[in-house]
């Protein structure tokens, strides 16, 4: 019996034309939390797919040794039987089924095909207790928030007698409280002897819970850091991930001269789209100067996205009252086309669902919002379109074999650059950026920040929404803080700190 629960030795995995993994080593000790870090495309997910048998034995080179045994998994079932369970970023629960049904899906408590519901319910209760979820086993999963669904996934893993739990970006979609809760649970499972591998971009969380960190870059193991052997800092991890010192995580603002007020909102009130008496946004006042980056900070559910979308052609909720001014003149942005015509742009927080047509190529996505500029009498000039797309590919450094590439095949950072290109092409004066760097690796983030600076330097007004306070502090000239649909404070760059913002973010109605 070795001290390692898992050893992956010399794993090499090639796809046609690409070497995704090259001689990767990974050693996870018994009962530890092991973080796997790396930029998007570094090979983290591929490595986990090799481990869990998604890529069966024979399609890769190298050895997997789990609990002292060499394993040759042909499918996920085999790895699960040994206690390796993977929880994917996109949760694999069926919304209309109950918690109990989901937990025992594919593993039903049954005798000769007949399900024993008493047994199922009793065992579900035990499992829910272990993960600290106080819900009825018969509650349908769709009534649960994302955080609780995550717990159901873990309960499901526990039901399979998990020894090694793999979590892919487990807190990406969770708010602060749910994230903390989840991390606490993972630590607790560690004390019960269940080891975990966590893939995460959130370095502060990793620092908090991980016992060891393995860093991948370009399909190779760069290093494994052990928390008990050396002091590990975020900078050290980032250095390993990008292969260079990131002394500057945010680019230098060369100029910071805000001009006149370009966009102003007064007394904005919006109700929930279905529940007419529920105020989602209440008495919002804000203004943006030319060339200014204005941040909006707030916890999940504070109404930041709702504000952005309702301003952008009233695409969220039920408008009740409020005025919008562009250059001091009142404008009625009653639908999205009108908002675009008035030079507003909105980059969504969910680029796959709301930002891009994934089955269309880069070119078509970039020009979609401003086809009028490329056409006469409704007839498109496709040659000009190609030139425009090529121009943006170069200027924003979109890494792609060509502008005919489907956007669904691009990495997160490049997808975001396509979305930004699309909106820059509409020649906006006010850009609302909703979580513009979510799910993007460190290197690409820096590029996106530079683009945002450049836009501000060109005199555009920018509304910058983000959940990550360091990002808000690093990027913005002025920050509005939201809580429960209201603006609870306005902070200048010089006065802002995480503590000040957090205090305002958690200020309830009162």
């Amino acid at each position: 019996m070795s001290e390692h629960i898992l050893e992956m030795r010399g794993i090499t995995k090639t796809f046609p034309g690409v070497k995704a993994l090259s001689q990767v080593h990974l050693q996870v000790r018994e009962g530890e939390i092991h973080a796997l870090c790396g930029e998007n495309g570094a090979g983290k997910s591929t490595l986990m797919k090799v481990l869990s048998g998604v890529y069966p034995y024979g399609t890769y080179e190298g050895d997997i040794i789990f609990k002292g045994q060499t394993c040759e998994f042909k499918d996920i079932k085999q790895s699960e039987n040994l206690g390796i369970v993977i929880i994917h970023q996109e949760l694999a629960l069926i919304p209309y089924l109950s918690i109990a049904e989901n937990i025992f899906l594919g593993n039903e408590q049954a005798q000769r095909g007949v399900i024993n519901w008493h047994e199922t319910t009793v065992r579900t209760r035990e499992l829910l207790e272990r993960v600290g979820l106080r819900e009825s086993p018969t509650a349908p999963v769709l009534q649960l928030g994302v955080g609780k669904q995550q717990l159901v996934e873990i309960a499901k893993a526990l039901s399979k007698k998990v020894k090694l739990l793999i979590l892919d970006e487990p807190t990406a979609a969770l708010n602060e409280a749910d994230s903390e809760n989840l991390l606490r649970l993972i630590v607790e499972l560690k004390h019960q002897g269940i080891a975990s591998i966590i893939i995460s971009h959130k370095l502060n969380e990793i620092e908090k819970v991980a016992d060891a960190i393995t860093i991948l870059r370009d399909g190779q193991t760069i290093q494994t850091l052990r928390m008990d052997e050396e002091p590990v800092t975020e900078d050290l991890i980032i250095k390993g991930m990008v292969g260079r010192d990131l002394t500057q995580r945010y680019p230098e603002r060369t100029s910071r001269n805000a001009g006149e007020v370009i966009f102003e909102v007064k007394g904005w009130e919006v109700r929930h789209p279905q529940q007419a008496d529920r105020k989602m946004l209440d008495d919002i006042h804000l203004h943006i100067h030319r060339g200014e980056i204005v941040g909006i900070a707030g916890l999940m559910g504070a109404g930041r996205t709702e504000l952005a979308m309702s301003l952008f052609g009233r695409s969220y909720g039920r408008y009740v009252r409020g005025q919008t001014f562009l250059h001091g003149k009142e404008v009625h942005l009653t639908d999205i086309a009108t908002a675009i015509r008035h030079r507003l742009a909105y980059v969504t927080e969910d680029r796959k669902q709301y930002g891009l047509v994934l089955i269309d190529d880069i070119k078509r996505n970039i020009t979609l919002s401003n086809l009028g500029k490329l056409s006469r009498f409704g007839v498109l000039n496709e040659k000009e379109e190609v030139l425009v797309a090529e121009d943006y590919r170069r200027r924003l450094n979109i890494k792609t074999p060509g502008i005919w590439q489907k956007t669904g095949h691009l990495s997160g950072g490049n997808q975001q650059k396509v979305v930004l290109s699309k909106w820059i092409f509409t020649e906006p004066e006010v850009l609302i950026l909703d979580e513009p760097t979510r799910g993007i690796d460190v290197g690409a983030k820096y590029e996106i920040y530079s683009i945002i600076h450049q836009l501000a330097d060109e005199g555009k007004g920018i509304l910058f929404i983000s959940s990550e306070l360091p990002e808000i502090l690093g990027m913005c000239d002025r920050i509005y803080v939201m809580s429960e649909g209201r603006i609870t404070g306005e902070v200048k760059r010089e006065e802002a700190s995480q503590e000040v913002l957090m205090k305002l973010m958690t200020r309830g109605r009162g």
Partner: protein
Amino acid sequence: MQAIGELFRKNIRQYGMIIALVFITVLFQILTDGILLKPLNITNLILQNSYILILAIGMVLVIITGHIDLSVGSVAAFIGALAAIMMVDMQLHPFVAVILSLLIGALIGAWQGFWVAYVNIPAFIVTLAGMLLFRGLTMIVLGGQSIAPFPKSFQKISSGFLPDWLGGGSLHVLTLVLGILLSLLVVWQEYRERRTRIKYRFEVPALWIFGLKLAALVVVLNLFTYVLATYHGIPNILVILFFLIVIYSFVMNRMIAGRHIYALGGNEKAAKLSGVKTKKVTFWVFVNMGALAALSGLIFAARLNSATPKAGTNFELDAIAACFIGGASATGGIGTVYGAIIGGLVMGVMNNGMSLIGLGVDWQQGIKGLVLLLAVAFDIYNKSKTQ
């Protein structure tokens, strides 16, 4: 050689469809001892399939937006019945009756588009209701009986040919001239396109490939018109079809409206947040479908020279099958007018060929079903391979 391979791989779906069509044509040409490609039969083929092809053009737009229209057969029958009442019972001038019929078709499309786009009822349900509703209305207005005959000038839509102004003989000279003119137009157009591509410094295929492609196009085109010329020449219906295909291809490929339709089908939410008026686009796609269904109904009525309660039964299924054989995706965002036409021709040639060799309708149905399934399976296999 490598260039051809590259070209082929990039366009496997398009070429695959044409290859399938050529294969099926050659197969039945052999099985029918050469009857299939006889001038008379080719003319018949066009006449028999025109109404399905017209429906397929409208249907592919509906399918690209991610919807479906099950009502087109019933709408075609209903419009045929109304046209008969207008022309036969009310003695309206055929021209006026045709315009009114198309307008009513568009109105029916607007009715269904309203429920789909603005009330958010799935198109499957709205048009299933429409299928029953308009079939019922057809029987009501016809009182369960057929109305016939139509005025001669109306029948000409389906049974007429372009007159030969250029003097008779056994060959239809105008047809040949049109074939040559069209060839010149195609060559000029392709050449101009190539020149602008070079001007913009885009990739162009090697000159000899370009030449070969043009030569093949010209040969096929003129062979086709020659065959038609040895019979009665170009049917009126072919002229209508030709313009519909050209116009709709242009709209879908080169105009903002087409781009919006594709974007809406590819990702409705993203399209909406990009400023595409998604509801409006959906609405007008159904209006368009209604008008084309009306046109299809008129042509069918003119061909039968009567309006019957059973007209247009199962047309919707043939039109939908044509779109899917032609590479459209059931989830929306993918499909072409040109593909739908090829898909419709595959079905048409099979129908015609199987009838010629005396295969019963029972067998025909079964084989068509299998071909639909295999075509889509081939499509999905190809997609999974390229990923």
